[in-house]
């Protein structure tokens, strides 16, 4: 069911963003920018042991230091708060108690243990240095395999093991497929741990309202609604007592969508001290305590028939969840999505995956852009390339043969996910055309003949976006994220205001939602005020994550906008004494073309609200110029793309340069082409980082090495090429408005495309790329070994 907008004017157009004037002039309001009167500042003392019992904590010296107002530890909180659990209805799942400050034991380097509150952050850090803690070290486990087989020193002893999740999927008959296969390609893949590195570190300002004894938490969060609900639970507050505001957020990428200990701590302290309390994470803290990504080891095999058609895929997935199962997503989130998306956009008749997720003494894992899909795509696309090579079939043609064909939609994959019609083949063709694949191959062959290590890599993927209530980001997780709402109104001054439960993390929602409302109602986007990022503005919300905001909030915006338009026309029709069909709306003015009579929204607003006597009583109810609508797409919609990358590797220094990058995507109807392009480019850049340089590194005792931006590397402008993002205009999705989510696609395809390009560049040495990032050091080792084997 699609709602067609009459003569869409703004949806599809390059509308300049409403967010930009404030962000460009430094007038944005990020959580750290909020400066309430007499606010206090928090410094957190974090564990420097990966696993230890807390024997004693001495806060006396700290308490006596200048400017210190209070110092609290886990025991002080234990009597005041309830712990939170990320529950799940999945059989066998083991939740872990989440306390904001460690009690009895610490489980990862970076875990918060004590909070110091002082008049400024400098003094708070001085006092932090005076805290004395006695730890009794316990054996730490940082390797997921070792954690799985451990017999003692469990992180959460009540569970009797470190295994948090164990699941199995099966469809078709994989045993038969493998035994009957003409060829089986396999590999063991390692997708190492990364971290989001939003340029804004997390920050939380709990503003205490003395007049009403209420809290407003200004939070660097993607999900004000989720955080509000969680805080209300933990602090035992009712709705009006706690409001969560996320006015401007400096990037999220999944690292700002879970409930963090520091959010609870500042709220608790603000209530206790009846003063505003602020915590700003520094970069070192961000790198050791913001939820981290990926970290899976996967054994996978692909069975093929004699013509190179896939018969089945089997995979064994081991996920490393770090020390805790975070709220609300659970430790199952990432690994389960790998299992769910491993069949990819291909025809895979038989499929089996078993998933195990263990706890280790590392920073808790959480969502990161792509969630499971970057890993799934990397593994699948490496197997595809390996298979293509073994069969001597061109990798593009191999994909074309195996992709779900246009006449096979809707297609149910081996994991039970259903792909609705999306341009799988069409994106493949488009990418190949834009990069001129045929000429590119000739150039590659010539380059290789001349001794250059030049390679081409392809990655095709599909994902489910705009998930509705019958799909879950993480199976069985405690909240349902399948609905968004839109409340649209025309106020007494004739202004259009649209309120949503989403949040701004840079993705331009204020603009794209305004474009939708503008088209539905008949005003310009700059005349629509968008309100979001505020848990109090709307009865219920969750936030922005999982590529859902445009689909769900956008769909609701269409519905609510349409309703308000009808009411407006009814009022105008009455005031102008004509039929509704005779009226047109443009740029905030209602006109009857036949007579050229006009009424502005301001005129109508005044009439409806201040001159209601002009309308018959019976009509007044219908003319309330407001509407609230909900949209639940139930399942979700398929977004797909093919990425093609070229790389050049220096044969002596093993520096990898990505030369060209083309991403051809089907994201349904485009609202704002520049915004879509920006999302793809940003995602691809992050994916290039994953492919080449990003890695969180712990030693076996759990000490973290990558605690500064000198050690954890993210790409700068010099490390990424120009990224050509092209959009397939063919199919609107079956969602209201025809939109598909597209915020994560860039990160899904890029690690695989770059990995495949590197493998292609190294094909003369028969080197398989099974581990990312493909750093110069790793390539040096692989090449040295390959040369030794040759000799």
């Amino acid at each position, binding site marked *: 069911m699609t709602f067609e907008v009459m003569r869409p004017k703004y949806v599809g157009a390059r509308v300049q963003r409403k967010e930009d004037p404030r962000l460009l002039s430094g007038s944005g309001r990020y959580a750290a920018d909020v400066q309430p009167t007499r606010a206090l500042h928090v410094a957190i003392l974090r564990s420097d042991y990966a696993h230890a019992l807390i024997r004693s904590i001495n806060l006396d010296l700290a308490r006596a230091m200048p400017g210190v107002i209070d110092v609290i530890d886990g025991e002080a909180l234990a009597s005041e708060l309830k712990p939170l659990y990320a529950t799940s209805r999945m059989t066998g799942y083991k939740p872990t108690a989440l306390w904001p400050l460690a009690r009895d034991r610490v489980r990862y380097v970076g875990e918060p243990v004590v909070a110091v509150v002082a008049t400024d952050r400098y003094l708070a850090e001085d006092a932090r240095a005076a805290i004395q803690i006695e730890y009794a070290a316990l054996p730490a486990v940082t390797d997921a395999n070792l954690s799985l087989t451990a017999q003692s020193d469990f992180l959460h002893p009540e569970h009797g093991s470190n295994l948090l999740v164990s699941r199995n999927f099966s469809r078709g008959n994989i045993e038969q497929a493998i035994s009957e296969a003409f060829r089986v390609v396999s590999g063991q893949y390692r997708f190492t741990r990364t971290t989001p590195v939003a340029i804004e570190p997390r920050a939380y300002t709990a503003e205490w309202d003395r007049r009403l004894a209420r809290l407003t938490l200004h939070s660097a969060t993607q999900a004000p609604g989720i955080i509000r609900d969680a805080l209300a639970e933990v602090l035992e507050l009712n709705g009006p007592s706690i409001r969560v505001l996320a006015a401007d957020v400096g990037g999220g990428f999944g690292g700002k969508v879970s409930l963090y200990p520091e959010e609870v701590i500042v709220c608790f302290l603000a209530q206790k001290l009846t003063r505003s309390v602020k915590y700003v994470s520094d970069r070192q803290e961000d790198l050791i305590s913001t939820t981290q990504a990926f970290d899976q080891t996967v054994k996978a095999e692909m069975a093929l028939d004699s013509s190179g058609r896939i018969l089945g895929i089997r995979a064994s997935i081991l996920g490393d969840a770090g020390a805790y199962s975070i709220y609300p997503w659970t430790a199952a989130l990432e690994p389960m999505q790998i299992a769910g998306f491993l069949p990819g956009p291909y025809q895979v008749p038989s499929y089996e995956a078993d998933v195990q997720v263990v706890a280790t003494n590392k920073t808790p894992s959480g969502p990161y852009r792509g969630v499971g899909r970057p890993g799934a795509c990397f593994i699948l696309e490496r197997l595809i390339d390996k298979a293509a090579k073994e069969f001597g079939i061109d990798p593009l043609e191999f994909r074309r043969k195996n992709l779900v064909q246009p006449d096979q939609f809707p297609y149910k994959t081996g994991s039970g996910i259903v792909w609705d019609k999306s341009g799988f083949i069409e994106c493949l063709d488009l990418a190949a055309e834009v990069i001129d694949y045929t000429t590119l191959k000739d150039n590659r062959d010539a380059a290789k003949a001349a001794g250059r290590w030049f390679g081409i890599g392809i990655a095709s993927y599909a994902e489910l976006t705009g998930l509705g209530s019958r799909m879950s980001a993480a199976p069985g997780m405690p909240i349902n994220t399948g609905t968004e709402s839109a409340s649209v109104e025309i106020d007494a001054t004739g202004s259009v205001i649209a309120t949503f439960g989403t949040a701004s993390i840079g993705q331009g929602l204020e603009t794209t939602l305004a474009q939708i409302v503008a088209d539905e109602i008949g005003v310009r986007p700059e005349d629509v005020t968008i309100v979001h990022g505020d848990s109090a503005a709307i009865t219920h919300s969750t936030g922005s994550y999982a590529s859902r905001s445009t689909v769900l909030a956008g769909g609701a915006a269409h519905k609510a906008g349409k309703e308000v338009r009808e009411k407006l026309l009814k009022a105008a029709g009455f005031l102008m004494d004509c039929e509704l069909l005779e009226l047109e709306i443009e740029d905030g003015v209602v006109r009857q073309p036949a007579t050229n009579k006009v009424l502005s929204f301001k005129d109508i607003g005044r009439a409806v609200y201040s001159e209601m006597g002009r309308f018959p009583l019976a009509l007044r109810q219908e003319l309330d110029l407001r509407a609230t609508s909900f949209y639940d797409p139930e399942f979700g919609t398929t977004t797909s793309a093919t990425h093609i990358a070229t790389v050049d590797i220096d044969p002596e220094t093993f520096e990898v340069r990505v030369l060209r990058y083309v991403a051809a995507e089907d994201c349904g109807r485009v609202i704002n082409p520049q915004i879509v392009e920006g999302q793809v480019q940003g995602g691809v850049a992050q994916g290039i980082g994953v492919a080449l340089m990003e890695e969180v590194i712990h030693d076996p005792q759990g000490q973290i090495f990558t605690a500064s931006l000198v050690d954890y590397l993210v790409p700068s402008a010099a490390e990424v090429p120009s990224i050509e993002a092209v959009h397939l205009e063919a199919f609107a999705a079956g969602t209201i408005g025809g939109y598909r989510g597209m915020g994560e696609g860039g990160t899904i395809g890029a690690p695989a495309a770059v990995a495949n390009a590197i493998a292609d560049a190294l094909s003369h040495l028969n080197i398989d790329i099974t581990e990312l990032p493909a*750093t*110069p050091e790793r390539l040096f080792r692989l090449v040295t070994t390959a040369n030794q084997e040759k000799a």
Partner: protein
Amino acid sequence: MKPPPFEYFRASNPEEAVAALGAHGGNAKLIAGGQSLMPMLNFRLLEPELLIDISKIASLKRIEKGSSGRWVIGAGVRHRDILVSEVLGNSYPILRAAMTHVAHVAIRNRGTIGGSLAHGDPAAEWPMLALLLDAEIEVLGRSGQRMIEAKDFFLGALHTSLSEDEIILAIHLPPAPVAWGFFETARRAGDFALAGAGVLLETQNGKISEARIALLGLGETPIRVYDAEAKLEGENLNSTNRAAAMEAAKAACQPMTDLHASAEFRVHLAGIMTGRSLDAAWGQAIC
């Protein structure tokens, strides 16, 4: 990550700085550009009682001609100033290339040559360049002024022969061969090099009359590969002596294994960087 508390004193001349250093017996630190010092303070890796600001001392900011064809660069001269200096660019063209590898624009706008030398990071460009250029470092302490040859200045990683009460006044660069080669390899643009090499060559009648090879990021200090240099004299660069020089560079370095590269990989890179730098310098020398 806020610095620990300290007192602050702005010195108006080098003597004041020396006196303040002396009065605090190792518990004071000089700050000029602060690009190396500030991160350490923000991470609380250092807790000095006193910071002595020398960034406004005019006498330290001069680039001037010295005696015997030398150039004298004041310790307070910034990387950025060296990058754009025509006179230095003419006499020591390798400097311009090397300076573009120093971090990023904003760091070069504050960071000073004195700061880089005093910090003594073996992976930084200036310690290696000082060694390559046979520089002399002019220093002032309570016991007076002295000159320290670059080869005696760097004792270990972040460890120089400066005493607690000494301040660098200037670096003296004697005339040097102008044909140059400079290559370093880093994880990203502007990052500390995994390995780097600098080469200077003088030729006479088509043969090498003087060769200098120095390495950065490959040991506790920058390294001069003296034995390789001697073997190149009197020859033109050919595949044999080029390979020998690369081997000598590999043998001379003692790199560490860290997050970014293993010692073995660095040794391999030492050879590559040396070979490429020799090629570039030779290419300039013969045309």
